[in-house]
């Protein structure tokens, strides 16, 4: 017989988002609280991020990923939050029945509140539809990071990295330190995708070239990667015929973006936002289905773990707020220059954070809020990069008295190149 358990809160995924929301829910009086994690340890992605750069905003010091995670694990161990490790959630029904398995058996939780914090996964070669042969030696950057940092394996010796996202940049340095040669980081856009500080510390300081407006068009090699064809691209991102050159290498690392992991959310009939790939949420991080919350990378890809922790703590509080699922007054939509807006819905405009990501890099930028085609609020931002989220306090924005659709745009002077 499956183990049947009644719960007030079940948190799915034990990364930074799940840990913070389970803790906060417990501290706010929810009982019992379950935290389900399929891995052997709590911490999610943090466990493999052994570089410093975590916790500056929250703790005022630079921690490594595992150190950051440790603070929360330690706190959790002093509560009665029931942590189940090696436990994979396989099904969530719209009525909040959560089914999971672990080596003890099948578990069935009936819960009043379910918190989705499953994180995200990496985009793959298949999604890019990158043609060529199918040899060994093609890795997503996060997988390579795990193999190096946790398994002690060196994926390759002559490496080309596609995509200038942060994981790719960090891996360029990591592999170089382990004795591999990183031939180049290739980026299809005309500007850097990751953080400037990562470019400086991971590429520039190691003399690793960054080729902007280039892409990989074919993979070569029968058994192991032997080389890739790199082409220049035009303004529209299309490869320019005649610009191809073969770069010999034994490994291709892909750092081409992350996708929120929402197969379970879909099963539970939770409405998803086509822009973020995550659930549509309001300022309480409540989904558009009674009893469900979502936090962390499952909602949309966050840049800093500190923000993930912050919003997840908010979720822990919100599980006890009866009005969290009341109808929203404002519907926020990304306008020109904006790639992502979280949350998408707002009830009152009195609490919580608003996160924005720009589509491109801008100098002397302005964020503008408009309602019925008229701008009602404008905010100056000296520099904005797609890699860095803009975080605003929702209560600082003079929301219109009437409800409806609010369009948020970003304009400014386009930055091309690295900075």
């Amino acid at each position, binding site marked *: 017989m499956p183990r049947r358990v009644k719960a007030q809160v079940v948190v799915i995924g034990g990364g930074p988002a799940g840990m913070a929301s389970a803790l906060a829910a417990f501290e706010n009086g929810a009982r019992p609280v379950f935290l389900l994690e399929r891995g052997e340890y709590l911490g999610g992605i943090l466990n493999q991020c052994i570089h410093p750069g975590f916790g500056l905003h929250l703790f005022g010091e630079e921690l490594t990923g595992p150190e950051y995670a440790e603070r929360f694990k330690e706190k959790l161990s002093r509560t009665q939050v029931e942590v189940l490790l090696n436990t994979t959630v396989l099904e969530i029904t719209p009525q909040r029945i959560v089914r999971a398995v672990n080596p003890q058996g099948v578990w069935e939780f009936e819960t009043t509140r379910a918190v989705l914090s499953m994180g995200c996964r990496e985009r793959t070669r298949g999604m890019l539809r990158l043609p060529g042969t199918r040899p060994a030696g093609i890795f997503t950057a996060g997988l390579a990071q795990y193999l190096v940092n946790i398994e002690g394996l060196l994926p390759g010796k002559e490496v080309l990295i596609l995509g200038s996202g942060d994981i790719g940049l960090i891996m360029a340095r990591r592999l170089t330190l382990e004795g591999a040669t990183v031939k180049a980081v290739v980026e299809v856009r005309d500007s850097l995708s990751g953080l400037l500080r990562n470019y400086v510390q991971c590429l520039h300081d190691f003399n690793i070239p960054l080729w902007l407006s280039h892409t990989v068009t*074919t993979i070569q090699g029968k058994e192991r990667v032997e080389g890739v064809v790199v082409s220049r691209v035009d303004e529209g991102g299309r490869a320019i015929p005649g610009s191809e050159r073969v770069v010999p290498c034994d490994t291709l690392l892909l750092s081409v973006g992350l996708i929120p992991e929402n197969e379970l959310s879909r099963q539970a009939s939770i409405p998803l936002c086509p822009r973020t790939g995550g659930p549509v949420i309001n300022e309480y991080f409540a989904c558009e289905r009674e009893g469900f919350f979502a936090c962390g990378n499952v909602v949309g890809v966050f840049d800093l773990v500190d923000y993930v922790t912050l919003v997840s703590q908010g979720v822990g509080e919100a599980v006890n707020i009866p009005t969290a699922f009341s109808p929203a007054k404002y519907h926020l939509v990304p306008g020109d220059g904006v790639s992502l807006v979280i949350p998408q819905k707002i009830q009152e405009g009195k609490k919580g954070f608003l996160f924005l990501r720009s589509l491109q890099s801008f100098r002397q930028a302005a964020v503008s809020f408009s309602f019925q085609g008229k701008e009602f609020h404008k905010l100056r931002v000296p520099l904005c990069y797609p890699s860095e989220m803009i975080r605003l306090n929702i209560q600082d924005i003079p929301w219109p008295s009437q409800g409806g659709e609010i369009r948020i745009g970003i304009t400014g002077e386009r930055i091309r190149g690295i900075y």
Partner: protein
Amino acid sequence: MEPVFDVIIVGGGVVGCAVAWYLSHFDLRVVLLEKERDVCCGVSKANTGVIHSRSYFTPHTLKGELHLRSLELFPSLERELDFHCHKVGALTIAFSLHDLQYLNTLKERGKNPHAEIIGPQELKELEPLVNPEVIACYYDPETKVVSPFLLTLALAEFAVLNGVEFIFFTEVLGFEETRDALSVQTNRGVYRARVAINCTGIHATSLAQKTGETIPLHRLYRGQYFVLDRDCQSLVKHVLYPVPTVGSKGILVTPTPEGNILVGPNFELIPEEDTATTKIGLEEVERGGGRLVPSLPLHKTITTFSGIRPTLPDRDFRIFFSLRFPRLLHLCGIESPGLTASLGIAEYVGEQIQKTGILFREKKVAPRVSFPVFRTASWEEREKLIAQDPDWGDIVCRCEEVTLAEIKHALSSCLPASTLDGLKRRVRVMAGRCQGSFCGMHLPDILMGKSLQKREAIMKSGEKSWYCLDTIGRAETENASTR
């Protein structure tokens, strides 16, 4: 002197394995030699996986004859191998009056009272996303789909259970006639047999030519595919065929038994064996698929692949004894529908072997029992499995929900996986939407235990397909965390 086998099968694709399956019913000493590390590393793993029904057979050819015979053999095979073909049915889509004629031909060939030609309205109910420009369509309920790898593996496992020996990494280089046997030369020594069967797929013709046969050169036609994410599963439920153009059955949209959708293949002449996919080829497939289903979500692609057809000028199978080596049987031009026809081919090959005077005495065979699949098991079954063995509760691959128990079984069964590809094709780790970016983290440990030195030995497929190229000392890894 080496022992003399009754039969040596050269090549472990679906045809070689079907021959092994067939021969394992008789009291014969049979060995199969395969140059790769596993069965089904050639064309048999890279095709559409459709068991084409009677409606699609080619009359007045050996190909057609063996196709029909195979269809008769499938039901009992499914019981014997504990293997399930998925009867999804097919729709052949007509866009013009000319196409319509072809639908009538199919109906005549099918001789199936349940098959029918239906109009756009009915079609829309069956497959709402099909191109609205369709004027009619032939509905054939008999068409099935299989995982071609799992079918080949099931045939091979049955053969192993019933006494056929499989030897890998052994490439046949040539033949020599001795007084009492045919000697088969390989890169790893000589094997002797009373009869040898050349089932080497696209290499069959060149091997035949090496033995001095005058057989026209085959041409190689590549077919490329997209594989779409399982969450597109509900979009297309039947095999969708266009009306064929010259050369091939055209670009299909096909549901797979695992719940993915395949789009392809195109039909492109290539100068030499090359299973790469190309931008141009994939664009052609995109257009072909889009003609059948305009809203095909190709952005949901999880991978692309290609397979190669060895086609003879007359487009038929050619199965014949070598003139120079009367104990050597060649199977050339086994192109589509070679997967469907494989059982018929095997029986036919058996009959040819009997003609050489080898006695076929039937023996009692052990049935094959398939191993449970966690993903498709009910919650009650899952609970029972975990109670038997906790490894059933340890999910290693999240996309395809593959458990440690299934992986361990695949690594220790009667034809165990020895490469990552072998594991992937058996249990579908790394075959889902993340293509191994998660389970790829844990597989090295599972495959090699905790012993670091051996890790470089993990291979994707062939001898030089190392998964990782080196190791990093544990101590060094820990130091690095403070860098």
